[in-house]
């Protein structure tokens, strides 16, 4: 479970998130809200990438910004995927194995299953700059999935995808949810709401709990 306690964050003086108290359980949780409302900021904070100005973030009772080595190990269960895919120079394959290489794990069988599932096999040996925006988004998603995260934080994961790939991604996320993975999606896509267990509407500093199924 991810829990925030009195979480406050500001880029300037005006807080973009103010005294936020939310709990994120297993399943799919959406952060929805208008542009600039703080969805991405909140997603990065709970991923351990952006320290809050005030308040705490706990993942399974571990304070991810203050518990030192324990926090570092806990954060290895979390993967955040950017809205604009971050793609490295070189081959597509180099991009796909980057996460595994950094973590020192060999999950190639899983990687090949993911490549097949998302229909990327013909692109693996290509240069990464040859990819379309949608293909880049799939590459960054596969890279994240290949390290088997327990917490998957996605920022606008469908924005560059065509209908066929959207359906595949959603189907895969639902499959992960059934496996007990916690998935958090920052999005303004209406399409994802029917798959969500919880939806938090973020409105410039405050959060409304819109839908809570099974919580």
């Amino acid at each position, binding site marked *: 479970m991810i829990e925030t306690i009195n979480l406050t964050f500001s880029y300037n003086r005006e807080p973009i998130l103010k005294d936020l108290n939310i709990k994120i359980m297993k399943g799919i949780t959406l952060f929805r809200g208008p542009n600039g409302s703080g969805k991405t900021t909140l997603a990065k904070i709970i991923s351990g*990438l952006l320290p809050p100005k005030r308040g705490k973030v706990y993942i399974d009772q571990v304070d991810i910004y203050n518990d030192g080595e324990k926090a570092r190990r806990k*954060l290895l269960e979390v*993967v955040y995927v*950017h809205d604009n895919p971050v793609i490295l*120079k070189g081959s597509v394959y180099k991009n796909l194995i980057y996460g595994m290489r950094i973590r020192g794990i060999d999950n190639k069988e899983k990687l090949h299953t993911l490549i097949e599932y998302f229909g990327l096999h013909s692109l693996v040996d290509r240069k990464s700059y040859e990819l379309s925006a949608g293909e880049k988004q799939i590459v960054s998603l596969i890279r994240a999935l290949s*390290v088997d995260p327990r917490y998957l934080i996605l920022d606008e994961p469908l924005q560059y995808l065509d209908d066929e790939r959207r359906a595949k991604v959603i189907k895969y996320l639902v499959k992960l949810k059934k496996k007990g993975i916690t998935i958090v999606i920052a999005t303004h896509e209406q399409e994802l709401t029917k798959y969500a267990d919880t939806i938090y509407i973020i409105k410039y500093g405050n959060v409304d709990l819109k839908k809570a199924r099974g919580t």
Partner: protein
Amino acid sequence: MIDINALIEITARSLAISGLATLFASLWSIPIAILLSIGQRRWARLLIAIFNSLVGVPTVIIGLLLYLLLSRSGPLGILSLLYTPYAIVVGQALLITPLMISFGVEVIGVRAKNLIEMSLTFGASTTQLLLTIIEEASTRIMAVSILGFQRAVGELGVALMLGGNIRGFTRVFTTAIALEIQKGEFELAIYLGIILILVDFIVIMILRILGWRK
């Protein structure tokens, strides 16, 4: 009649001294620029502001400070570096450090922010992070180094105060041009000036080409 040997010798020495100074400055400036790009804390922003303000420090101030340090009665006098090419290398390396860090934060930081977050989300160590950024931002890093070299090769204060403009030993482009003009012998000064401008031009062209490739 122009002394071709002197021309070649001064050109070679200038390029070697400024090249070495740029190499040394790159060794610390690039990692510092990357670390400051990574740092989201207040101290990182403060350090960036300090380096930004140091970019415009006159070369004679750096020259004076190092002169006091390296002179026989100074704390580093024992090294006997003053009036040697090594003193110019040290001086130029220090001179271009704030410029390289400031420009580095500016151009590497843009590419690095998302890259850093992506690497950190997979649990990258500081070394893994640095290596990833160096690999991914290599073109921009090259641009930072070229800019540093350009500043080093064109400066006068440090070369004059720390090198002493000794013929056949520490004489470089800028000190030679200044001397020849003082002597009223403009021919060598003009040729050296043309070569200096050519070096600058080549550097700018390399920057442009790197920009196109990017």
